[in-house]
């Protein structure tokens, strides 16, 4: 037996590290979501180069939501900083060994890439806005008339999306002092979690925009009012099954990566086994299995499979569950990771 007694009592450090609260999981989730939206939008732009309406939900609404989500995520990150007025210091240097430095520069490139993707098809998606601002039509025409530019925007979105998604995982994975985070698999895990969240979000938007006789009258009124105010065109519901199918693939890969992540810890050192125990049998086991694996992955996987085989209607439920599961994954991993420690394994 080893017993440690310490006189240290530093705030946020003792009795166990808790320096990151809700802001960081929210930032990581929104970063992953934006990464997924960029990759899907980029692929749609590359595959559907001609200006077709099917591209609208992925290539316009996705990137526009991505810009909003990214701004919200960066605001959450800003709220977490203890020395807020010095935030600009991030952009006075580039530290190649720091994942956070890589991330801050990647985020700077993500904005123009997302904006360019959104502008390519904006006049088709929201004609009312284009009529009010003719410059949007000129920009869209300029982009779509140049095949190389369209391809460059598409590939830039895919590449930056992959970098952003992996970065959100590597940010934690590079911190070797916390055994639970110490896995390179966190990068692809957060990337595919972000992809599934993005596909689920776009699928949810399509479900909402489709006519539905069983929808309550007030919800129908709200949605039609929103469409009228924004001047947006109705979305093509044919993209729904494609997105649900893609989401099922992403969820399956995420589940496999989660299994490999835990397997890697269980076959590693005592500290890593103990860290994995936090999720498997420890204080985070119940929320992890219920909210992340059950409600966040398995149930939506089942629901979307039933939707794709036409046994049930397409509903908003899988989208809500996947988004909730994505947030739960980050909240639980950030909290449990801070609790995992080299010293604790001595006992």
């Amino acid at each position: 037996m080893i017993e440690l007694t310490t006189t240290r009592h530093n705030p946020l450090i003792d009795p166990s590290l808790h320096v990151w609260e809700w802001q960081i999981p929210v930032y990581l989730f929104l970063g992953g979501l934006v990464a997924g939206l960029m990759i899907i939008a980029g692929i749609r732009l590359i595959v559907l180069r001609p200006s077709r309406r099917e591209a609208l939900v992925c290539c316009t609404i996705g990137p526009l939501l991505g810009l909003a989500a990214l701004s919200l995520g960066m605001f959450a990150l800003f709220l977490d900083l203890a020395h807020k007025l010095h935030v600009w210091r991030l952009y006075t240097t580039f530290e190649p060994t720091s994942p956070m430095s890589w991330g801050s520069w990647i985020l700077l490139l993500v904005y123009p890439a997302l904006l360019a993707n959104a502008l390519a098809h904006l006049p088709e998606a929201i004609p009312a806005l284009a009529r009010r601002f003719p410059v949007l039509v000129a920009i869209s025409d300029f982009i779509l008339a140049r095949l190389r530019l369209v391809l460059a925007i598409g590939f830039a979105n895919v590449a930056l999306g992959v970098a952003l998604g992996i970065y959100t995982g590597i940010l934690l994975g590079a911190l070797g002092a916390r055994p639970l985070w110490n896995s390179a698999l966190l990068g692809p895990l957060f990337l595919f979690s972000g992809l599934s969240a993005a596909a689920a979000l776009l699928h949810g938007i399509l479900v909402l925009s489709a006519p539905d006789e069983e929808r309550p009258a007030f919800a129908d009124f709200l949605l039609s009012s929103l469409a009228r105010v924004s001047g947006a065109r109705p979305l093509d519901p044919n993209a729904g099954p494609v997105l649900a199918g893609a989401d099922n693939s992403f969820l399956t890969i995420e589940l496999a990566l989660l299994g490999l992540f835990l397997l890697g810890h269980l076959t590693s050192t005592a500290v890593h086994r103990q860290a994995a125990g936090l999720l498997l049998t420890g204080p985070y086991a119940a929320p992890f299995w219920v909210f992340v694996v059950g409600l966040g992955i398995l149930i939506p996987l089942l629901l979307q499979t039933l939707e794709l085989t036409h046994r049930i209607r397409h509903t908003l439920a899988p989208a809500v569950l996947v988004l909730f599961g994505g947030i739960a994954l980050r909240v639980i991993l950030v909290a449990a990771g801070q609790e995992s420690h080299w010293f604790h394994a001595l006992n």
Partner: protein
Amino acid sequence: MSRFAMVIDTRRCVGCQDCVVACKTENSVPQGYCRDWIVEEVHGAFPTPHLEIRSERCNHCAEPPCVSCCPTGASHVHDFGGVVLVHHDLCIGCKACLAACPYDARFIHPDGYADKCTFCIHRVAKGLDPACVSVCPTHCMHFGDLDDPTSEVSRLLASRTHHTLLPEAGTQPRVFYLT
């Protein structure tokens, strides 16, 4: 090139916390925080338990993970003695260095920047010992240059068995404990 290190004799340390008080006084450490602290480690079982009392602080690692993860370069290795320091003006308070340190040696100062032991570099530059070393009533703490084979720390490490904290973390700490 010098490499400063601290050597602490755990057979002499009585855990009186004079080093903690001296550090707080010398460096104006805010109330409720500490840059160094006392750890009592008991292992074994009755009737042969073993007690080790240690004065712990930042280990000023040769491979400091707090420096490599810093996004602004605020955490850095100083040319003078290889001491790990923080530029308060460059620090944005992102707390990555706190999460990266396996010894939990850092904290966020109420003014918003990451703070920790500096080996009292302002005193060392004047030829003095760090405050904690200078007040130790049992003379269990020693400070000096590892690159100087005649220094007290080099001689102690050459002649006594010693260990560092969490050597398996690969950080190569420069605070050594004589056993």
